């Protein structure tokens, strides 16, 4: 628990960019040199950054699918089971008549699909969140940030790379 609450600051270099293509170039150059654990901040999602980072598609979609299917199954299971649990004939219809139950199953598909999608984003953000990584308020405004985790032996090389790519500011983060 204590480790979660008070995590150490991660040593590395935080660079700010104003130009989008400069930031994308820097990401490609860093990745080519073997820096994989980059954290890239941007005020909005951006295709150029995504292409440079070359991430896999988010696994959130799997949770949407599982949530939706669970909701659908739960909707049919609940209505059919409850109909047989106390069988009452209504309007000469079968005890469990599927067409009206489609409505309930549909609503629960949407409900659980949506909730599990949001829960998945929370889960992945918690699992993949890097605690103690430096941040700057300008990254939610109009700048792009790149954090490169680096030990003291790598810092000067990384800084040179970032500056030549067009970083407007480079900051050293000590542990």
């Amino acid at each position, binding site marked *: 628990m204590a480790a979660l609450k008070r995590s150490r600051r991660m040593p590395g270099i935080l660079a700010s960019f104003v130009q989008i293509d400069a930031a994308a170039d820097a990401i490609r150059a860093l990745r080519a040199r073997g820096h994989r654990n980059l954290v890239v*901040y941007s005020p909005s999602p951006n295709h150029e950054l995504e292409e440079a980072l070359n991430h896999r598609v988010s696994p959130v979609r799997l949770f949407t699918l599982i949530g939706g299917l669970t909701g659908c199954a739960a909707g049919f299971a609940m209505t059919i089971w409850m*109909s047989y649990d*106390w069988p*009452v004939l209504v309007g000469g219809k079968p005890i469990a008549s599927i067409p009206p139950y489609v409505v309930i199953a549909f*609503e629960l598909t949407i409900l659980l699909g949506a909730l599990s999608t949001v829960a998945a*984003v929370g889960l992945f*953000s918690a699992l993949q969140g890097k605690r103690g990584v430096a941040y700057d308020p300008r990254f939610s*405004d109009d700048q792009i940030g790149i954090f490169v985790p680096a030990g003291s032996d790598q810092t000067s090389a990384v800084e040179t790379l970032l500056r030549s790519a*067009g970083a407007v500011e480079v900051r050293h983060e000590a542990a």
Partner: protein
Amino acid sequence: MAVVTHPTTVSHDTQHIPPMTHAEVTRDVVATLGPASRGYVLLLLGAVSIFLIGILTFLILIKDGLGHAGYNPPVFWSVYITTFVFWVGIGHAGTLISAILFLFRSPWRTAVYRSTEAMTVFAVMTAGLFPIIHIGRQWIFYWLLPYPNQRYLWPNFKSPLIWDVFAISTYLTVSTTFLVFGLLPDLAAVRDKVSGWRKTIYTWTAAGWQGTDNQWRHYSRAYLYLAALATPLVLSVHSVVSWDFASSIVPGWHGTIFAPYFVAGAIYSGIGMVLTLIIPLRRALRIEHMITEYHFDNLAKLTLLTGSILLYAYAMEYFIAWYSGNTFEQATFFRRAFGPMWWAGWTMIICNAFVSQLLWFRKIRVNITALFVISIFINIGMWFERYVIIVSSLSNDYLPWAWDQMNPTWADWGILAGSFGWFGMWFLLFAKNFPIVAIQEIKEMIPMPRMRGGHH
């Protein structure tokens, strides 16, 4: 190839992008959250006072029972159910704009979707109160939920009323989730601009959002799926509401056209409310440069489309009533136009089917004053549409000797007014405390500066 810049083409292609930088977008939207003006405080006080009228009426209803409302046999569904359908319908435009137009990649939605989505949540929240007010014994409302009661009875899942419980609660949950989820990056942007106790509040509400590559990767995907789930949901909700009526055999209710007719009407009424809300709002919050003539033109086109669908549906209802050869159906529709409630019937037809046809003219579509006036007509017309459908059909239902009229009383009007106060209060509070224009999505449209010129 030589680059030919043609002024009209260029402005047409980029008119959805406000001519601003990223920093200006943050600055201008954060400025809307500043200290409240006197006008805002007066509006909020007005909304709260009207809401208190509703609270007072409701307390009297709880104490004495529903007898104060204008129920009169055979009319046991009247103003409360009318207002329930009205508010559920209002919500639909918000989800259409935020989810369906997102899937269609319609760029004009970006500037207005946050305000319409907030409208959706608060309208459905308002609507949800009405079945509870209407049941009379509010303290046992949970009988609607499927739980094992002491006699081990379950709800009747073949009843559209129980479908409605599921549809409305799902709609409220999913649209609230969608709104809050979309707010996260914007709350982070506000957090990084303000100071003091406000920073503490936005730090908590932004839930640790930093806009990292991983957060955006999951967020963008999730947003897409939420939009894809909300799209069929919104179409289903008003269909289910329409089946509350259509699956009975009351003349005037028993129509297969009801589901699409209700969905079109819902979106039409919702856009009416959107116009009523954002025309004063954009001036009060000084965001006229973000919500422009271009957005109103598009909103008006959507109003024209749904209004024309309503015109068709009204015509079809009358046509089928005549063509069916069913005497009761024919009599019901004759009475709608020439019976004791003729004034309500014509209010509905004129405000909805005819007033919307004015929007064929671009001059009217971009005239903000005209749009505001039309939006008021839409709000009135759509409330009366539900009133006509519900009350005029029920008052002449099956046995002619049992037929009777109903007249709304102070208890009906008090609750109706209170619902506007309640809705207005939440909307005003939202507009002052949360970014009413989606900061992040506006930024997504504005190209960031480049080191090398030109587009990629």
